[in-house]
């Protein structure tokens, strides 16, 4: 029953996200299918921000205060500007038998992960020690009590914890099994986001193939439902990639509302995990660089930083409450670790159990990836993040031979979506420019 309640709340989060994304921001002209992942991300962020504001205003977290918002969003979704909410799965009717078989493979994989998410209670270590322990504490205290941060000696941001607190409020207890469905939600939405981000460019065959390969990665399945649901890395990868997709929307149409939406998603990325701040900074720097190049006015550029207001709020909250549990406070730089870091990274690339042949194919395709100018912003972001992580390992107070193998599979989750986008866009370019008769079906569009 509790799982159903969580599923219903997720539904209302998506509806609210739709209304915000399509009603107020730049996704107005896009279909429901393309908007769905952004609506999910926006809905999750919106309600966690709401809980944060209520907590800071000393207003009780009562589900009855949130229900009217669900109602208003649903009414707006159903009756307001209906033509914009038209269901447009136009590509589905044109799909071939082979494409539908591939889609069936995707359904079978997603069903397996859902089944795993429903099968067990929380087991993931970070769920115990960081995310859901705070959800439970916030729920029991009825507000964001800084005490729990001191008890745990951490300063991780709040979105993932508060999101589960929202579900607890509606369930009426801290049921850590039921909320694992929300982690499955990030798994599903990641695949939809990947497909919708490039199927018009690379075709349905290649789009479905990439999503099938993404969903079947064992590491994704584990974090989406099997044993490691409860870590926030899948969500972080989702928000990072969503921000890059919105950045592309901005480059295409240069709408002010795209800038605000990008800022909001970057703000959310920085509030998922601490690594999110580095990701948000990388995309923000790219945005500024691009805007200067495209002669976008400074006044427009400033719109980006509206989305960072919650981050500033969070930072002030940490300062006021003396929350500072960073592991890296008293660290020093160890250049000598470089080769060791490279060794453990390469080892994870070759971890077929986690990643199948994904990273092997990425490495093999480096020559075509670096030549592909269509993905240069995504490539810069993904590469910059690698350097950030190398830098983090160099200053880490932990022994790299223990630290890196422990976290590397999760760090690669942050960039998996982007690398899928980069890889399949580049492979499509390769096959499209040099078609080989037997491989033609990979590059054919449904329109052709």
């Amino acid at each position, binding site marked *: 029953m509790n799982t159903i309640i969580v599923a219903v709340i997720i539904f209302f989060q998506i509806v609210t996200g739709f209304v915000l994304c399509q009603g107020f921001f730049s996704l107005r002209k896009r279909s429901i299918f393309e908007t769905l992942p952004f609506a999910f991300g926006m809905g999750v962020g919106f309600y966690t921000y709401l809980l944060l504001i209520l907590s800071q205003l000393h207003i009780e977290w009562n589900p009855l205060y949130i229900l009217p918002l669900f109602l208003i969003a649903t009414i707006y979704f159903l009756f307001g500007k209906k033509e914009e909410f038209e269901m447009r799965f136009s590509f589905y009717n044109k799909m071939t038998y082979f494409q539908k078989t591939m889609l069936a*493979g995707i359904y079978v994989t997603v069903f397996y992960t859902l089944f795993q998410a429903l099968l067990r209670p929380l087991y993931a270590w970070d769920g115990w020690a960081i995310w859901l322990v705070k959800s439970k*504490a916030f729920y029991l*205290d009825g507000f964001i009590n800084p005490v729990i941060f001191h008890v745990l000696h951490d300063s991780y941001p709040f979105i993932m914890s508060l999101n589960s607190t929202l579900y607890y409020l509606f369930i009426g207890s801290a049921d850590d099994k039921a909320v694992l469905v929300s982690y499955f939600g990030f798994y599903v939405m990641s695949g939809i986001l990947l497909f919708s981000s490039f199927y018009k460019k690379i075709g349905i065959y290649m789009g479905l193939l990439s999503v099938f390969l993404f969903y079947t990665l064992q590491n994704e399945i584990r974090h989406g439902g099997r044993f490691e649901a409860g870590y926030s890395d899948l969500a972080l990868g989702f928000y990072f990639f969503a921000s890059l997709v919105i950045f592309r929307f901005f480059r295409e149409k240069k709408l002010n509302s795209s800038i605000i939406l990008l800022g909001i998603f970057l703000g959310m990325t920085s509030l998922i995990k601490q690594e999110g701040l580095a990701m948000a900074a990388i995309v923000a720097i790219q945005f500024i660089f691009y805007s200067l190049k495209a002669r976008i006015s400074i006044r427009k550029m400033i719109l980006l930083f509206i989305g960072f207001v919650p981050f500033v709020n969070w930072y002030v909250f940490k300062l006021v409450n003396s929350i500072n549990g960073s592991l890296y406070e008293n660290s020093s730089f160890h250049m000598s670790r470089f080769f060791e870091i490279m060794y453990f990274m390469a080892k994870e690339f070759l971890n077929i159990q986690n990643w199948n042949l994904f990273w092997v194919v990425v490495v093999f395709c480096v020559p075509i990836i670096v030549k592909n100018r269509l993905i240069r912003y995504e490539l810069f972001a993904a590469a910059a993040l690698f350097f950030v992580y190398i830098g983090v390992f160099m200053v880490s107070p932990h022994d790299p031979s223990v630290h890196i193998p422990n976290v590397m599979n999760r760090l690669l989750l942050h960039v998996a979506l982007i690398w899928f986008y980069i890889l399949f866009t580049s492979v499509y370019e*390769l096959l499209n420019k040099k078609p080989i008769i037997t491989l033609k079906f990979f590059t054919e569009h449904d329109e052709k």
Partner: protein
Amino acid sequence: MRRSQIIPSAGILKKSYTILVVLLISLWVLLSVVRLGYNYVRAFSSEKEWFFMDDGEKRVRLLGYEHILLSTIEKRTTPTDSILFVLQDMQFSPGFGYKAIYYLYPRRLVFDTEKEWSADFSNSFSYIIFFGNKGMGMSKSLSQKYELDDHIQFDVLGMNIYKKK
């Protein structure tokens, strides 16, 4: 033999590279399908027993004795209680502290080792819990103020819950 006959042309290299990329992706697809099939086989064979367990049994399977210990403490104490855990040593059960916080928040928890805990310091707690893999008791000075509330024994592990009189 002319140089051009030995070194393949750029066109052939590109074509070979393309074919290799496609072969690698095909192999990747094949492995994914096999892995997916294996996942389902495993779900209905070695993991089948999970279907028939209730929530408590699943938690015991995942966390072992820690779930039994912590859920017992949760039931026996109130959220306003303060609890001192006296462990055999801090490495005895890695991560036990975090799990204890997860189960028992907002109770005030303090962790100490058998060697270092002080009887005077311990007077300020509502409960003292001894947890280790051999007989762990309490000093005579404390036994005047605390009484044994519960005892749980596993194969080699034991937990004594002492409550303030």
